[in-house]
């Protein structure tokens, strides 16, 4: 079995499912980074809170999955706006490093806070997807994986259309391109920051709910975001397309490495994205699609 072409295909399929979630999480990072040049270390915590919130809605309020899903997204967006308005906005004009450290501090706070509100144990996510997998040409695909992939793809397409055609999307691109000029053109840059955080938090919410379906759900869910760092760096921090491709590459790479080497080197799966990241950065210091910073004195 090991080494057969089917096995490889199977790995690629699961890898794509994982990778598509990474892509969604990565987009969240990229949207914030493009607007504010801040890497949001608290992204994983927002993702985790979203999953817990969704469980709360389904289990205690007995909502159906879909309304709960959308309510969670709204909740996340509001959370994002609150974080931006009260914590990140005072940091405009401060060194980037300081702002990034604030998000790190935020992630330190949010983890135990979530634990205190929702408990520290494992939670079973009431999965809306059937347990029986689909078997297609000898390749086993679980419904959760399939839906994850489809939803992620939808999110990416919506993103693409949003940035390409909607007024807010174009304003966001303008602000990301050159803040001052956008400001002078009458774009409310502060509002753009808020919108960026809202969108990023909402994507984190989507990713959180999708991941809670396939992974063990506890406070460690937030660490998934750390695994997305290689993906966004790979694609370049400021490229949405890069986040998509980087996410898929990391997902597939990780699953294939895990599938073939995990027997000999346990845990290599977890570590392989970082090794790949290191190698990529040596060759291309701005990732595959990131804009190269031109140095002027």
């Amino acid at each position, binding site marked *: 079995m090991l080494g057969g072409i089917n096995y490889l295909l199977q790995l690629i399929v699961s890898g794509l499912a994982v990778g598509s979630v990474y892509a969604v999480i990565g987009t969240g990072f990229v949207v914030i980074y493009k607007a504010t040049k801040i890497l949001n270390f608290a992204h994983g915590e927002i993702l985790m809170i979203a999953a817990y919130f969704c469980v709360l809605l389904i289990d205690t309020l007995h909502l159906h999955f879909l309304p709960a899903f959308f309510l969670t997204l709204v909740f996340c967006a509001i959370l994002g706006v609150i974080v931006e308005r009260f*914590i990140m906005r005072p940091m405009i004009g401060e060194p980037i*490093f300081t702002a990034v450290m*604030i998000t790190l501090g935020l992630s*330190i*706070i949010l983890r135990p806070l979530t634990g205190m509100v929702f408990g520290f144990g494992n939670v079973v996510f009431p999965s809306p997807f059937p347990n029986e997998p689909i078997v297609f040409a000898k390749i086993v695909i679980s419904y959760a994986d399939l839906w994850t992939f489809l939803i992620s793809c939808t999110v990416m397409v919506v993103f693409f259309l949003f940035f390409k055609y909607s007024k807010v999307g174009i304003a966001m691109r303008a602000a990301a391109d050159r803040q001052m000029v956008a400001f002078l053109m009458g774009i409310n840059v502060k509002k753009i920051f808020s919108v960026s955080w809202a969108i990023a938090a909402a994507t984190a919410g989507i990713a959180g709910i999708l991941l809670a379906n396939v992974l063990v759900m506890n406070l460690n869910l937030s660490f998934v975001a750390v695994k997305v760092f290689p993906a966004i760096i790979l694609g370049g921090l400021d490229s949405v397309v890069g986040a998509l491709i980087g996410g898929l590459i990391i997902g597939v790479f990780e699953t294939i490495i895990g599938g073939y080497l995990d027997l000999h080197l346990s845990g290599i799966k977890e570590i392989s994205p970082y090794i790949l*990241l290191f190698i990529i950065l040596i060759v291309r210091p701005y990732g595959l699609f990131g804009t190269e910073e031109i140095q002027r004195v």
Partner: protein
Amino acid sequence: MVLRSKTFIETYQEDLSLSRTIWVKCWWMMLFISIILFPFFVGRYTLYTINLVGIYIIGAIGLNILTGYTGQISIGHAGFLAIGSYATTILGEKIGFLPFYVIIPLSGVIAAFIGIFVGIPCLRLRGLYLAMATMSFGIIVQYVLFQWERLTHGALGMAAPSIVSFGFKVDSDGKFYFLIAVIVFLLGFAAKNMMRMKIGRAFVAIRDRDVAADVMGVDLTRYKVMAFGISSFYAGVSGSLFAYYTTYVNPEYFTVFLSVEYLAMIIVGGMGSILGSILGALFIGVVPEWLRIFFGFLNETFHLGGLVFTQQLKVIIYGVLIILFLIFESGGLFAIWQRTKTSFRSWPFTY
């Protein structure tokens, strides 16, 4: 810098000295004496905390040289600390006869070599890309320590050798206190002086604008690699002392969170200042203990939710403190200290 009135600098010697007036020398003497007398007046647990703070100080100075002075953000400091610790335990296990005064610097040198080795590929990276690269380095080091069982015993951890030299055994907290204090003094002064020298000036120039520094004739490659090397040396020594002091090391300790904790130290203390590293390490080392005592007291009197609850509350307050510091005092404790000093100096005038 504000000089005290009636202080005149007449020779280069005076200009270069760290303590310019007789009063500063007096303060130094008093500090010195109180540091020597300190362990005789406090309990064992306080001494233990302070010893750990001493170890943190060395690591924090190292990180401050790289991140605070040279501006190369590193989230992989735990990796270098781990290398220092494991260099000590492995050397102690394989070459048992080496005395501690060889092993400690040797651990630092090994960490420095690996730091240089990592620094070279990181030369082209800047800002967040560099942060991510160093973070991956830290994660990879931890993984290697877990997996290379023949050398590191994996998750079981390793016991550190005991310090015996000239028939004298360093085994109690008090003895460790003096050993750590001496090393902190040596490395602290070395760093302080290094940062006033050509190297330090070059580092600061690179931090402020690397292209400009390059144009001015600062060899970027050389000094960036040097910053990585020096920083890792300090981390290695710190890790080595940590291994000796806790007598046992385990890869689980050296997480990304530890790197973040070190970053918190230099941010709270003050970026780009040696005194800041010391204050920051004190803060991060001591404040959790105060919180622990405070919450222990609360628990006893009010019967709050129990230990887990307070444990988490401690972490939250820790995070809040970091955020508050960043928002309201980005210069850190060092800036507060500087302000207080200046206001005393220019009293009764406001500035």
